[in-house]
């Protein structure tokens, strides 16, 4: 399978997990709200990455690895934030 498709599957998995976790949080607890914001950020960033991969594949030029690495680094920061805030 192409690397872009594998990345999309990984991102979708992460987005799915984030979305499911959203529903387990307490909506009035400050820590719960902070984790909610971070998980929502993961969903948004996932959308941006999938959209970028789609555009790149469509243009047949392929995606830029540095940009995808930046995206992965942002995911890592968000996941770290979830761990710290939880």
């Amino acid at each position, binding site marked *: 399978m192409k690397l872009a498709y594998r990345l999309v599957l990984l991102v979708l998995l992460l987005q799915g997990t984030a979305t499911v976790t959203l529903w387990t949080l307490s909506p009035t607890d400050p820590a719960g709200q902070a984790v909610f914001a*971070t998980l929502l950020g993961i969903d948004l*960033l996932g959308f*941006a990455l999938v*959209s970028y991969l*789609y555009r790149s594949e469509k243009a047949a030029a392929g995606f830029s690895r540095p940009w995808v690495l930046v995206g992965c680094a942002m995911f890592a*920061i*968000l996941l770290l934030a979830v761990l710290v805030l939880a």
Partner: protein
Amino acid sequence: MAAEDETKGPVDRLVRWVDSRLGLSHPLLRPVPLYALNPFAWLGALTVVAFAILAITGILMMLYYVPTPTQAYASTAYIFNQVAYGRFIETVHLYTAYAMVLLMFAHMMRGFFVSVHKRPREMMWLVGMLMGGITLGFAFTGYLLPWTVISKSATDVAVGMISQLPPPLASFVSFLVVGPGGDTGELLRFYDLHIVVLPAALLLLLVVKMYMLEAHGISDPATKRGRAPERQRTAPIFPDVTLYLLELAAIFGTGMLLLGALFPLNLPPGYSPTTAGQYTAQPDWYFLWLYQVLKISAFEGAGLTGLPAAVATGLLLVSLFLSIWFFRKGQWPLGFLGLAAAFAFGASITILLAVTLLFAVLFLLPFLDVDEKRAIQHRPVFVTTGAIFIAELTVLAYWGLITPGQVIPTWEGAAVVGGTAAIVALGSLVAFRFARTRQAPEASA
């Protein structure tokens, strides 16, 4: 057609289905040149995205907020502590409002430096300036609404400053934002302006600006490299440009959410005359520069008066004239010196005049910077003026932050404002000289 569809992937087929039903790729919006697909060209669009986030979070807060002096703070605290995700919504609303002010400023200054205001886009620039004013109006009116001791005290200072304006303008602005109804009337006016009048005005101007954008298209790049043939190709508005913009919006939204999660808002105490006495009133960061300007000129006096003021005004005009003359003759060092001198003379008459002069230049830019040349290296006067503008705002804001409530002697203000202008002009001179010496061998080669 059906055979062609079968060869496409499921995402492509979905996109084509949506497009065929909604007509998104119908040529209503013109394609976008590839050189414009960079984040800096979309700062204005991101400002609109920030406005959309503010509208959504604002509408959610409107469901619980009560705009009366006795209920405003209590209802804000209720949203904060009792409403599901209320603290999150308030935090994101505040940070996105800050981001909208920053994005608006960045969008304006980028346009200034890359000459988007030149023919035929003069009116777009003026409409954009009005939209910038409305954005600051949003920040001003929204700040009071939580009715905290900080927001009410700072607004009281700002309302007090309105009386320093020329009489007819002071009466009009005072009627618009304060009225005869005391605190109750003032809060209601701020609320109405914030949720009805300003959004409606902004949306109207946005439609006008978008119409003009479609008529004129995105401005050409200021450099030859940007106008290279391979960069003149275009991308369709749907799906390419739409997805690109959504990606930027998603990344921006992620940043706001992460900021909100890591630095959640803490609600300051509610306003009462007793608690107000314990705080030094100070506006939020985006108005600190104005606060500092008025602390110098309005509270301490109007700088030079009488004959010295007339002499300084004369010197200002002579310096400005000489500066332009020297620049036209290619005598850049003397031109920069004249520009700095004009600014210093302006500052000695009144700081407010000097800053007003800068804003006047900014607003009337399309009618002052009329030369066909658009590249930065060919516009030393305006590029230097823009750099002075940014430096003055930054210095005044920081100065205002570290001197809360202090009255600044006028001579000190003139020294700092004039000194900042002189330092930036000198730096600009060195940079332009350096750029010219580097270009000269390339040209001879």
